[in-house]
């Protein structure tokens, strides 16, 4: 219920509560597989399915998204306890970025744009692949870049 971090994006928090960092990485692996299938088949419904999963991860947090639940039910019991916990806000923000990328792809696909499914699937696949293989959160990096784009006034004076 309490979800620290999402309401309070202005602060850098200490290492309070957190989630097992391997959960989002397993989720990113499943995401990558689904997006690879979307890319190879060009099937709009596969991409739409992943967009729904992104939406759930964005709304509920990665730990309660379908992949997060799969991790907790089937993977986590087989692993040793995590050495350190991770803030759930960054992977959740990355789910929102994934939702935007796949959502825009779906809109273009609905408008009949050629290869919209493939392009959106490829972009999101790069991010999911980097996350699962290298532990690099590409979506998370966008937060600061977007903040920087929003103009100099937004920063000072807070």
């Amino acid at each position, binding site marked *: 219920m309490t979800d620290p*971090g999402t309401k*309070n*994006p*202005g*602060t*850098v928090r200490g*290492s309070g509560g957190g989630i097992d*960092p391997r959960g989002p990485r397993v989720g990113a692996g499943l995401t990558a597989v689904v997006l*690879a299938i979307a*890319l*190879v*088949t*060009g099937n709009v419904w596969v991409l739409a399915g992943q967009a729904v999963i992104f939406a759930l991860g964005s709304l509920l947090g990665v730990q309660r998204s379908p992949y997060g639940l799969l991790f907790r039910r089937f993977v986590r019991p087989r692993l040793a306890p995590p050495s*350190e916990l*991770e*803030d759930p*806000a*960054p*992977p959740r*923000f*990355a789910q929102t970025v994934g939702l935007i990328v796949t959502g825009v792809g779906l809109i273009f696909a609905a408008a009949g744009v050629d290869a919209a499914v*493939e392009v959106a699937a*490829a972009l999101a*696949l*790069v991010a999911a*692949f*980097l996350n699962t*293989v*290298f*532990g*690099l*959160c590409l*979506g*998370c*990096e966008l*937060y*600061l*870049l977007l*903040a*920087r784009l929003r103009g*100099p006034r*937004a*920063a*000072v004076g*807070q």
Partner: protein
Amino acid sequence: MPWRCPVLLLSVDSFLLRVAVLVVVLLLATSVGLVLRRRAGRARVVIDGDVLAAADLAAPLGERATFVQFSSPTCSSCGAVRRVLTGLAATDPGLAHVEIDATERLDLARRLSILRTPTVLLLDHRGLVVRRISGPITPEQARAAVPESTWSR
């Protein structure tokens, strides 16, 4: 009429092309990942760096050197870097660690060209930026970034 795979509803040629595209995308992602992993935690020498004062940081400078860590609310490895640097600063009275939310200090982020978090700047005793480190940092890398004596006055 080309043969169409009943499952994919695609011709074999088109299917092979798509698999080739998938392979290229994954190769690109892998090379990006390898480059970033290689750079992660490496202290790069900054030539002709900016000078930061205690007023810029809203925190006092370390007597010998200061780690200025730029973080953001959606940064997955900032917590680990914070633990490494506060741990190092605790063992050496000449070192200070200052953490700044780059999204709150966009003025500093622009001035110092901070594009990613975590980015750590290492300042000498005058506040001159001498090293720049991005990505996750191991305790060994953090220790190695601070020269033993060259900066002493």
